[in-house]
């Protein structure tokens, strides 16, 4: 579904990604783990078009999206839940969700998806007229995911959905991610919480200082000595 080959990304003179390749197959959950500053967020931003690679190719559903504007990428079915949720704090929950469906014109479908989001996250329904800046961190994360789902994505990019959340909430969010996946949405999940990420993913990539250093089945990775040592706290 998504095929990234040999991309380089720079911030000014600093190279953030070096020759990164990865693939995501339809209906998979693929996770990308790595330490702070390894380039995980950079990669997601590049996939959604906010950043541009200087080399390499990005194929999505057989088409190159490397130079496509962000809107076209969203329209083609890639939704990105950014790091730190980035909800529109000055707008209500419902307005945020409406914006998620910004490019859609099928009113009926939008309504259906809104109901779907509300059934996934009942708390959002309860708070639909509240300003999203007043929500708790967990609720904002749910809103950010719900907002991305409103675009009816085929591929959902999730950037650190567990960041700053209590363990119980993290579990809840991860359950919902699995549910979304079962519904037919492919997921690329970026996480620092490697343990949680590997427990729900099919495959995983480990990224270190801008390069992919390891990849494989999530279950194998969970048992790999190297991953254990570096990311699972040597359990």
């Amino acid at each position, binding site marked *: 579904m998504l095929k990234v080959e040999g991309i380089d990304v720079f911030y000014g003179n600093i190279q953030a990604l070096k020759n990164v390749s990865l693939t995501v197959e339809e209906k998979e959950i693929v996770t990308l783990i790595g330490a702070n500053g390894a380039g995980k967020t950079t990669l997601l931003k590049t996939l*959604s*078009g*906010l950043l541009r690679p200087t080399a390499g190719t990005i194929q999505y559903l057989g088409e190159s999206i490397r130079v496509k*504007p*962000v*809107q076209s990428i*969203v*329209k083609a079915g890639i*939704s*990105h839940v*950014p790091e*730190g949720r*980035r*909800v*529109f*704090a*000055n*707008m209500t929950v419902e*307005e945020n969700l*409406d*914006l*998620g469906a*910004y*490019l859609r014109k099928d009113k009926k479908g939008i309504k259906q998806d809104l109901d779907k989001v509300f059934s996934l996250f009942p708390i959002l329904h309860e708070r639909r007229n509240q300003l999203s*800046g007043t*929500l*708790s*961190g967990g609720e*904002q994360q749910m809103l950010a995911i719900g*907002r*991305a789902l409103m*675009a009816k994505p085929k591929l959902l990019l999730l950037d650190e959905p567990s960041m*700053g959340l209590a363990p119980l909430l993290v579990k809840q969010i991860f359950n919902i991610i699995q549910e979304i996946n079962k519904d037919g949405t492919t997921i690329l999940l970026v996480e620092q919480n490697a343990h949680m990420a590997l427990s729900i993913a099919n495959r995983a990539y480990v990224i270190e200082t801008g390069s992919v250093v390891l990849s494989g089945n999530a279950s194998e990775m969970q048992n790999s000595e190297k991953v254990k040592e570096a990311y699972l706290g040597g359990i």
Partner: protein
Amino acid sequence: MEWIQQIVNGISLGSIYALIALGYTMVYGIIKLINFAHGDVFMIGSFVGFFAITGWNLGFFPALLLSMTVCAILGVIIERVAYKRLRNSTRIAALITAIGVSLLIEYVVIYFRGAQPEAYPKEILPAKSFELFGAKIDSQSLYILLITIVLMVLLQFIVHRTKIGKAMRAVSHDQDAAQLMGINVDTTISATFAIGSALAGAAGVIFGLYYIKIDPLMGIIPGLKAFIAAVLGGIGIIPGAMVGGFILGIVEVIVSAFGFSSWRDAAAFIILILILIFRPSGIFGKNTREKV
């Protein structure tokens, strides 16, 4: 009951400030630029209205619409030509460019038609006066207030109920996140300039109707005053600009009414200084905290 009359005068003046201030505040809200050329868009609006009324014999309302349309287009051109390429540069570079655009507009107008003033024809709108609680109220003041209110309601509707309005609010809050929704940031910024400039155009025609005399440098002082009004209400906040405009208009008229009319400009700037010292975020501004 002279004070009622003074308040009415203040509201008329405040309407003009408020309409201009809205453009300042909207543009600031979305690209964090104080568009100092905005007062000159107001001037162009006033001249377009003048030529439409005297040259083409249009009525007041068609002239108002024409002026708003021309200003909207002008605003979009200014943004595309001068500011767009500076979006990722320092704010001071954009600010200096805005001052440059302001001077360019003023002196291009002077180059082509000279610096002499024009006088708006009287009686474009029925100018009857009537008594209200013992005060003599001019029907033109009521028209001005009415037009302003209609435009503000329309603006609120656009900003809160339409797709482009929601896009504008999203872009002003978080440009990257807005892009991830599929919002076209360039189009949204253009729309903001178009709407803000149209309001300045309307203010220009109303100004001509109310003060009669217009000239190519007329935009400077009202532009600065409207900027103060926007800061007073809280820059970037739309209702703030409306309230700030009305307050400033009323304060100026009161200062004049007490016999200090030569101090009215000073009063506005004293307000600016005070607000910057004691409440820099303005009346409606607040420090919103975000949860991380």
